[in-house]
């Protein structure tokens, strides 16, 4: 039934076929489509000429521009580093205290640290660096290893108990699990611990003796801690793992070995200094 008809509406001829009542006009391909084809194809041809495109058996056409994505990103990053050199070099050179006194530099530090701290540290220490169970606050005055900028930077560089060859190493022994102390003994130490920070308690003399024998070597006679060993101060109000009975019991029974990643290799020296400065600044703000 190939009868060509004319569509009364458009005046175009049909192809002469009909399928279940459907017919087709034989309208010519509109000029705009050809135009469109030419533009896109010419654009593609230019791209093929300029960029790496066509595979050959064991190589490919490199394109007149000789571009490759890896070189491009390397150049961009180098240029970006160049562009920030004016202030990042100063960060690298100046001592932290001097950076802190330099409002312009601090402006750079603070705008940079949000991302650096947010993407790398906040997961553990919290967005506000106030820490959380198992993760020390970085804005208080209780330090395991010391709050001096150089010390902090070193802590960041090598981590604590990390895989880094120079890692700081600190372990709270598992007195209970490893059989050094009995349950009762641990309970009496736990009862004694609050008195270190001046809280009143009943008779804790048994705990006191046990503490002197077992704990003082690391945490000091009065539980004041030892920053050479990374042993925390037990006489202040700051707790990493919690100061309630249960948490203390668990700390003594299972021991603790906090794991702080080493950032060398992941963050640059300048980045580490930046974060250190930022933390220093945060603490000072907190204090006010």
């Amino acid at each position, binding site marked *: 039934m190939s009868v060509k008809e004319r569509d009364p509406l458009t005046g175009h001829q049909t192809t002469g076929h009909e399928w279940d009542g459907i017919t*087709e006009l034989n309208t010519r391909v509109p000029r705009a489509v050809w135009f469109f*084809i030419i533009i896109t194809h010419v654009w593609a041809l230019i791209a093929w000429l300029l*960029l790496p495109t066509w595979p050959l058996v064991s190589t490919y056409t490199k394109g007149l521009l000789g571009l490759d994505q890896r070189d491009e990103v390397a150049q961009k990053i180098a240029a970006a580093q160049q562009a920030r050199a004016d202030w990042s070099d100063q960060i690298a050179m100046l001592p932290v205290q001097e950076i802190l006194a330099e409002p312009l530099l601090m402006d750079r530090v603070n705008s*940079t640290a949000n991302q650096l701290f*947010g*993407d790398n540290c906040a997961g553990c220490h919290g967005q506000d660096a106030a820490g959380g169970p198992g993760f020390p606050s970085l804005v208080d005055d209780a330090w395991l290893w010391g709050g001096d900028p150089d010390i902090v930077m070193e802590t960041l560089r090598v981590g604590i108990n990390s895989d880094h060859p120079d890692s700081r190493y600190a372990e709270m022994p598992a007195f209970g699990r490893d059989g050094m102390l009995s349950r009762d003994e641990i309970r009496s130490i736990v009862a004694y611990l609050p008195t270190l920070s001046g809280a009143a308690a009943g008779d804790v003399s048994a705990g006191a003796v046990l503490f002197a024998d077992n704990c003082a070597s690391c945490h000091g006679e009065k539980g004041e801690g030892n920053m050479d060993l990374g042993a925390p101060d037990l006489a202040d109000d700051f707790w990493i793992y919690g100061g309630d009975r249960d948490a203390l019991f668990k700390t003594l029974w299972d021991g603790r070995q906090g794991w702080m990643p080493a950032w060398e290799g992941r963050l640059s020296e300048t980045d580490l200094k930046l974060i250190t400065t930022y933390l220093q600044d945060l603490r000072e703000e907190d204090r006010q």
Partner: protein
Amino acid sequence: MMSNLTRAERGTAMLITGIGVLIGLAMAALGHGDALGAHGWIVLIFCAVLFFIVADAFYSAEPVEDRAAAYYDDPTKVGIMISLIWAVIAMGMGVWVAAQLAWPDLRFDAPWSSFGRLRPVHTSGVIFGFGGNALIATSFHVMQRTCRARMPGQISPWFVLLGFNLFCIVAASGYLMGVTQSKEYAEPEWYADIWLVVVWVTYFVLYMRTLAWRNEPHIYVANWYYLAFILVVAILHIVNNLAVPASFAGAKSYSAFSGVQDAMTQWWYGHNAVAFFLTSGFLGMLYYFLPKRAERPIYSYRLSILSFWGIVFFYMWAGSHHLHYTALPHWVQTLGMTFSVMLLVPSWASAGNALMTLNGAWHKVRDDATLRFMMVAAVFYALSTFEGSFMAIRPVNGLSHYTDWTVGHVHAGAMGWVALITFGSIYALVPMLWRRAGMYSPKAVEWHFWLALAGTVIYVFAMWNSGIIQGLMWRSYTEAGSLRYSFVDSLVAMHPYYIARAFGGLLFLIGACIGLWNVAMTVRHAPARNPARDYPTSSETMEPAVPVAE
């Protein structure tokens, strides 16, 4: 339905489902203690239910009339209903998944309800469950009508439809159990993949045989698209799913490809799943139902040729636009980018062809929500292909990749184009198939249209916003030349958009529920009507055919 099958055919059906039961049993025994075993039980139950349905009607009356005098519409009818049920399930999953991103604790405590497991239930559910069933059902209808020939074979259409649904069920239940190959849109494991090959080959043979029986000298454009859909999906599926099982008694397998070759193969597949599943097949639908409903001739046959071959050829090069700036060599990326842009021409040519076909029928578009579904679908098709070609340009993709912008693009295509054309086609098809004067409630169609449109627009705008904000936040620099935002900053900024998206999706889902209800009511309660002329011309009868069952 069973009355259309002879006793011998019922026997064959029982044999096939019986074999299915045995396969299920074997899987259950072999895979005991593994998800494969659970799937064995699902296969067993599925086949056993079918077996008993057939067995139950085994001795009922046999067909008396000349079956060749009528089209074979039973599988189409069932396919349409199944497709709508999948739509409600899978879009419901979409809404749930969207809500989880806004309120992450909106789930059960059980592992199956976590985002990572539900998401593929949504994606496979809409693409394969809803889209696939609609494609199979409409292709059965369209190929018979445009060939003026009844499908040869009484069992194979059922085998294709129900076999495909078995695949979908195994896929979706597998995701909930954590069975996945992780390849997007090809997640089902090796045994489901093998099964799909069997179903698909049968589908292809059925299609070719119908074409061979046709009473029209020329093959209509809609059939080119359906054919391309069947053929290319088969090629893509087989290559991308090549894998070695860790054990024939377990579900787990490992892809034959690794690393960069795997990435390229996967996105060659993934992009062309879009092209040949979500585009080609639905263009087949459009090419039949739109001119039929508008009662206008296709605007241009020549444009059809140009766009068809353009789509078939250019799409296959574009997959690497999913891998810009990655470890995929730069040269492949250039190819992907340029071919994606050239692809815009045939894409717009087919959208334009559809819209120009409406010339002289715009008053119908205004009055008839069914036609309006199709018209808006063509507009979204144009929009999402434009957006796709734009996003395929490397620097643009640098911003859009990994963000919600991609999700926005996906749903402009998937909701705006795929779902709307399907709903439009179903509303056009249901009264024809069940010989009704019209849909039970034209008002409900109208409601569905506006809910779907509003839902799509809200969804897509929310994702454009969130995606672009996300992309910009990730690469935003301070004056100091350092990154401005942490990842979590960008996450917080997404929250309002995730709520908006869930709301838009909910509207869309409500529309789909209304659609299912309306179709069910049409089948049961709408006034009947005999179509003017609807029978294969190979038949001797020159009377309007009424299905033998009626």
